[in-house]
């Protein structure tokens, strides 16, 4: 009987991953992967993603280029009745970047209370816990999820999560303490406030300031309509303490995100919006922004079910993404003019899914990048053909 419990637990997980608008809780993203549903105790799986790019910026192009963007390997184990383990090893751009993106252990006391520890994915917005490329019908991740929410954000920490079912609604919560981000949020290679630069391998070994960051998310899901969530991440990011001595002011960073996804008529819709506030050293103000925001809206409409090559459930989907990020909200004290540093993009695309875990996609992308001074935006446009599949 005891042996059957893991199997029963696994069967309770979604066996088949869906398209971009999933039918499961965002919270369960890390277990909403097809390889998990096919085993009884330990399994290996992953996904691979590649694409080709052709872009032109203000008449200048580097020509075509191709990349194997990600090759990620998952390892899952149902360790015991209430303990399960999941890891994700990522090879990005071939072997240019190799990272242990996830290595977590869950101990389930009840569905409403699960303890989690290890290298986790802080529950900030929707994408961070649901970043697998085969889920998405666009080649690129939304800008707000890479430039402001620093997905994929994985940090060492621990916390709890759970869900309740009440009156047809599934309510979920997540709360974690992690090492947080590091000093390079400012003074980085981009010359502007860049939250993703605050990620660092050294933070997997030790917090840079001994003060953990908090992340949490509350969400409500109505199975027939979709899910809405609000999430928060906050913590000190700078090394204000060295050898026990305070050597700088404590600088707080926080991100508030709102995400929603579901079905509207024939369309699958997903949107996220995030706002960040960053305490900036007084000597870096204005050129390093203390406020940022961004958001995107994806609309996907299945337009054709061709039954290709024996794939009875193959579907062709037309999509449109609108997105905008502002990396430096505010005005110049010297002139009163708006500070720029903004990107606006429109991305129409078409995808083909022979099965739900494999996607071929073609995107046309046009985006406008305004520099900090607010000069005429640089215009960049091009095409991307890509594929991604779970294995």
């Amino acid at each position, binding site marked *: 009987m005891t042996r059957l419990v893991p199997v029963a637990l696994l069967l309770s997980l979604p066996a088949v991953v869906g398209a971009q608008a999933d039918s499961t809780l965002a919270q369960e993203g890390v277990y909403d992967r097809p390889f998990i549903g096919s085993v009884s105790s330990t399994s290996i799986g992953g996904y691979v993603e590649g694409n080709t790019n052709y872009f032109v910026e*203000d008449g200048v*192009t580097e020509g075509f280029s191709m990349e194997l963007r990600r090759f990620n390997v998952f390892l899952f184990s149902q360790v015991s009745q209430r303990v399960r383990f999941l890891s994700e090893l990522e090879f990005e751009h071939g072997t240019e970047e190799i990272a242990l993106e996830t290595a977590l252990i869950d101990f389930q006391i009840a569905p409403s209370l699960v303890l989690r520890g290890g290298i986790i994915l802080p529950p900030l917005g929707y994408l961070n816990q649901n970043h697998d490329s085969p889920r998405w019908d666009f080649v690129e991740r939304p800008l707000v999820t890479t430039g402001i929410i620093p997905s994929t954000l994985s940090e060492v920490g621990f916390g709890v999560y759970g869900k309740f079912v009440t009156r047809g609604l599934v309510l979920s919560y997540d709360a974690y303490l992690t090492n947080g981000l590091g000093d390079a949020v400012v*003074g980085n290679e981009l010359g502007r406030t860049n939250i993703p630069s605050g990620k660092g391998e050294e933070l997997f070994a030790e917090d840079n300031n001994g003060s953990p960051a908090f992340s949490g998310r509350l969400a409500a899901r109505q199975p027939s309509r979709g899910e809405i969530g609000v999430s928060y991440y906050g913590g000190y990011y*700078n090394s204000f303490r060295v050898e026990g001595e305070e*050597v*700088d002011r404590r600088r707080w960073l926080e991100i508030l995100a709102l995400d929603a996804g579901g079905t509207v008529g024939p369309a699958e819709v997903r949107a996220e919006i995030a706002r960040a506030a960053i305490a900036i050293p007084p*000597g870096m103000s204005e050129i390093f922004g203390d406020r940022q925001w961004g958001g995107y809206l994806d609309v996907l409409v299945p337009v054709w079910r061709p039954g290709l090559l024996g794939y009875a459930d193959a579907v062709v989907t037309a999509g449109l993404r609108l997105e905008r990020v502002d990396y430096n909200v505010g005005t110049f004290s010297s002139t009163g003019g708006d500070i720029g540093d903004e990107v606006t993009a429109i991305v129409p695309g078409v995808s083909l899914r022979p099965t739900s875990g494999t996607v071929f996609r*073609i995107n046309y992308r046009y985006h406008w990048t305004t520099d900090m001074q607010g*000069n005429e935006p640089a215009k960049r446009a091009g*095409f991307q053909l890509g594929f991604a599949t779970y294995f």
Partner: protein
Amino acid sequence: MHRAALFGTILLAFPLVGCDLLTPGAPADHDVLAGTIEGMTPSQVRQHLAGDAEFGRVFTVADGLGPIFVAASCEQCHAGDGKGHPVFNLRRFGRPGTSAFDPMIEFGGPQLQHRAIPGYPPEEVPVEATGVSGFTPPAVTGLGFLDAVEDQTLIDLADPSDEDGDGISGRLQLHEPSELIETVLELERRGTPDPEARGRRVGGRYIGRFGKKGLTVNLLHQTVGAYHQDMGVTSDLLPEDLFNPSAGARASDDAPDPEVTSAAVGNVVFYLKTLKAPARRDASDPEVVAGEALFEDIGCTGCHVPTLTTGASEIEVLDRVTFHPYTDLLLHDMGPGLDDGYTEGRASTSEWRTPPLWGIGLAQEFQGGQGFFMHDGRATSLAEAIEVHGGEGRAARDAFIALSPEERSRLIRFLESL
């Protein structure tokens, strides 16, 4: 099945067919300042592009940015190689000394670095300073032409005693010899076809030609100075880091010095030398042509000399070339309205080096859509810029004000065409 094949074919063919139709085209050459001088060899273009990459390089704390600085890259101040935004204005300060102007070195002068890496205190202008001046970053396009003008040309243009009686004098900025100046001039002489034509001494001093008051003698001098003073980045020629005296003498950053290689500096200098001259727009428009005549008639060309010629240069495209920068690279007294009480070298506090006017019609394209003119960006239109001229520029200013509205409009049209 046929429908599927057709669909797939159309889908895959779409990017190939649509590449040119759906991608942004290049702006017209005369609408941008970036770009190489026409006729450069492939190897020169390669070095120009290497310099371009260095010009755009953002220095991080680990790279050696700061510890005090104004900007983190060359390009932040000179976006698109154009005139900079006031947010990157340099502030320089000092006070009158007993025998010469005191740049207040002991207070961190003469240049303020009001930004600092995390955990390090930025500088503030000391209360003891009596003169503070803002310097808006200039456009960097066409600098190679100005750099290649022979010293003798500037000596010939100078008229310190106004012997021609036109009310405009024009003095050479001259600097006492220093190890840095002599080194940058010696490095420049190497490989130059006519080494004697550059770095000449006048009364035992060297001619300054770049900077608002002619502080630097050539582009190498200007470049290592900007790395050091604007970004806090050390080089072989200026190997000691900046520090804020209030943080403790020589308390600096942790990056090993020099923080930029001599090769990178060399590439940036080459990049600056080989940026094209700004192209004119609507030069043959009758209104513009009429405005150009008015520009000369009212005496603007007394300082803003339209045409200069380069000397012998090892870079063929700069070798003995006639060009139109609208400057004489000399110091002129601009009157009390433009006297900030600050100066450099032997210039008086009201003297400024004539800025080149080429490219000024595109200035606002690189300043966030709003023009900021004069040395500190105090004027927000070309007409306002003319109207704040004084001293040697006063006669021309008065003549401009006396023009009819139509004539003023033509003159402005001409400036906008530069």
